[in-house]
């Protein structure tokens, strides 16, 4: 009995059990401190749909042994370019969103290819290099947002008349285009963003299916044992670049889904930190730097967004102080550190 319990715990992982029970506890406390449970559930679902794809975007690169994608911002920038260009063309509604997706994918392929070339040169140091690549890309694009000749008055600065705003509303273009698709209400406060969830599910399915194909298994082989892969005649560098492009495309789609739900396109420094929550989520879900399963993505996104939604409101109402934010920082970064140290323990 004890052995079996141990087995279950090992399978799910102690940290996930702890976090899940912590989250559960927050939900139990919530009604007593005046936080509505149904709106909280609604928020968690909405955030899950919004952020899930960004978390998923880490998947291919982990599989191919490129590590955690600290350069996620490149994909985000591709998505942002797609979004602002589609807005500039003033295509509204579903067509606008599709246009944004197409443009984003084109940019993501270009960025991903170059990024992949670079990462191939720095095998073993991918994560640190990627962090800096991400940061420098964001500041480079800050210059570009000001200089690129965008004209649509919805997007440019209110006063100066030149350069893009820090936040651009998607209202009137493709705001909630996915969220409202087939959406339905449960009770008075829970709205299920069916379209966004379906889109997320579709992407998960594509990724899952891809890793069942020959190309997918090759990618996995490159990640788990590059030497063996090479001896099997797989072009390791090429496969790695493919995985980076794949990741970058998903990240670009992820930010588009995020924006249609959020209602704003955020430029300049907004993408700077976007890699961290996604990485925290996937690690929280039980992935490691080299190993990942689909359920890690789903569970991680759910738990992380749950913590993010619940801690500020519940703890805030509980202790009536702004300290909740500090506690959140400790918990989420503590989880990342824990996850980074974990695998070595298993091996030794």
């Amino acid at each position, binding site marked *: 009995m004890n052995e079996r319990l141990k087995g279950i715990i090992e399978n799910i992982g102690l940290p996930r059990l702890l976090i899940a029970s912590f989250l559960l506890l927050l939900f139990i406390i919530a009604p007593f401190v005046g936080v509505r449970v149904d709106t909280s559930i609604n928020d968690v679902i909405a955030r899950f749909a919004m952020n899930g794809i960004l978390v998923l975007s880490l998947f291919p690169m982990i599989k191919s042994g490129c590590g955690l994608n600290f350069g996620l911002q490149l994909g985000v920038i591709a998505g942002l370019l797609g979004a602002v260009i589609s807005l500039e063309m003033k295509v509204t509604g579903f067509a606008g969103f599709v246009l944004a997706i197409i443009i984003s994918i084109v940019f993501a392929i270009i960025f991903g290819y170059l990024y992949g070339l670079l990462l191939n040169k720095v095998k073993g140091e991918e994560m640190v290099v990627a*962090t800096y690549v991400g940061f420098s890309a964001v500041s480079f694009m800050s210059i570009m947002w000001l*200089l690129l000749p965008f004209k649509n008055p919805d997007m440019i600065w209110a006063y100066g008349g030149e350069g893009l705003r820090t936040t651009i509303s998607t209202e009137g273009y493709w705001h909630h285009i996915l969220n409202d698709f087939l959406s339905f209400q449960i009770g008075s406060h829970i709205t299920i963003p069916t379209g966004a969830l379906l889109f997320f599910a579709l992407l998960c399915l594509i990724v899952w299916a891809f890793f069942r194909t020959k190309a997918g298994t090759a990618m996995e082989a490159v990640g788990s044992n590059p030497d063996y892969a090479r001896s099997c005649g797989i072009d390791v560098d090429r496969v790695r670049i493919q995985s980076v492009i794949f990741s970058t495309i998903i990240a670009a789609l992820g930010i588009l889904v995020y924006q249609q739900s959020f209602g704003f396109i955020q430029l300049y420094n907004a993408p700077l930190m976007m890699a961290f929550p996604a990485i925290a989520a996937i690690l929280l879900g039980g992935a490691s730097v080299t190993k990942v399963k689909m359920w890690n993505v789903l569970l991680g996104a759910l738990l992380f967004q749950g913590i993010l939604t619940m801690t500020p409101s519940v703890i805030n109402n509980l202790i009536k102080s702004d300290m909740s934010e500090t506690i959140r*920082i*400790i918990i989420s970064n503590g989880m990342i550190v824990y996850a980074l140290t974990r695998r070595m323990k298993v091996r030794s």
Partner: protein
Amino acid sequence: MKNQDSLKTVNPVKQFFINYAVPILFIIMIVFAAPMSGLSPVFLINEVMTRLTRNSFLILSLLIPVLAGMGMNFGIVMGAMAGQIGLILITDWQIVGVPGILLAMLISTPIAIVFGYFTGIVLNKARGREMVTGMMLGYFMNGIYQLLVLYGMGKIIPIRDKSILLSRGYGIRNAISLDGIRQSLDNVIKLDIMGIQIPLVTLAVIALNCLFIIWFRKTKLGQDMRTVGQDMEVARMAGIDVEKTRIISIIISTVLAAYGMIIYLQNIGTINTYNSHEQIGFFAVAALLVGGASVSRASILNVFIGVVLFHTVFIVSPRAGKELIGSAQLGEYFRVFITYGVIAFSLALYAWRNRIEAENERKKAMMLRRASLQNEAEEGGNL
């Protein structure tokens, strides 16, 4: 003979450019940007001197973990926190001048040792990913620091000085003026040569740190660290306690970082209580890399070249960018882009260089083997 020649095919000129690509790039940038910025030479030299005395100590604290093969220690952020706690306390007690600085260092030492020990343990568990883990650990500890300083001080740790305590009764204000110790180390003896201010004592302290590092490398412990850095398995077989050695290297680094932060802040004159330390790691690492160091090899010379080049670009690029593109804020974005871009570039270059070297090694080894086989064959033929 022919074989011997082919062994030397690594072109020394090319090798030099590969090794020093980043410093060379920076020198070129400065040559173009400095005149464009419109700053007077005296101002520029003075400012570079300030940066040199302000930042060198902090960057020197990165050297020892590199020796132990742990890469760039982003965990110096925690040393910086320890230094700040020391400074907050002496400000509250109103201890001023050089004694104040020394007392702050004294207080920060045990805190830094504890932080360093903790960092060392965590990094031992995250072997092979020390840099990313160190970075994340910094974010994590930032939360703990906030908890301690914003909620603990005034409640648990008594703070009497009303000018640093928030009026709500607990928590330290977001900015603290270090009037009492401001530049007191720099001003003990200050030379003025043609308008250029040279703070001798601070420089002496930095020199002392350099001597310490040179001496330390020669000790038994320093040698052990080098062995651990080169090959952990070999070190273990030689009877070295690898884990302990690595922890010690991080502790030394953290303590030095605490002192470095105190020197840095006494020159700046104010503390941003919750943010001063956050980017210290990023900038220190950047400067060291710009100086031509790599993740596995960093010397004292790299530190000084790095500080001068990196900070000169920092000083001139916003203004040069402004002149170049014609807008003040574009100059600012340009500067940030340069900072991060250069780090990415130099890290990439380093990793790439390593691979080329490994490749060369492999070729060399193969050639040697082939040569020896040939020799054997020839000798065999002779017999």
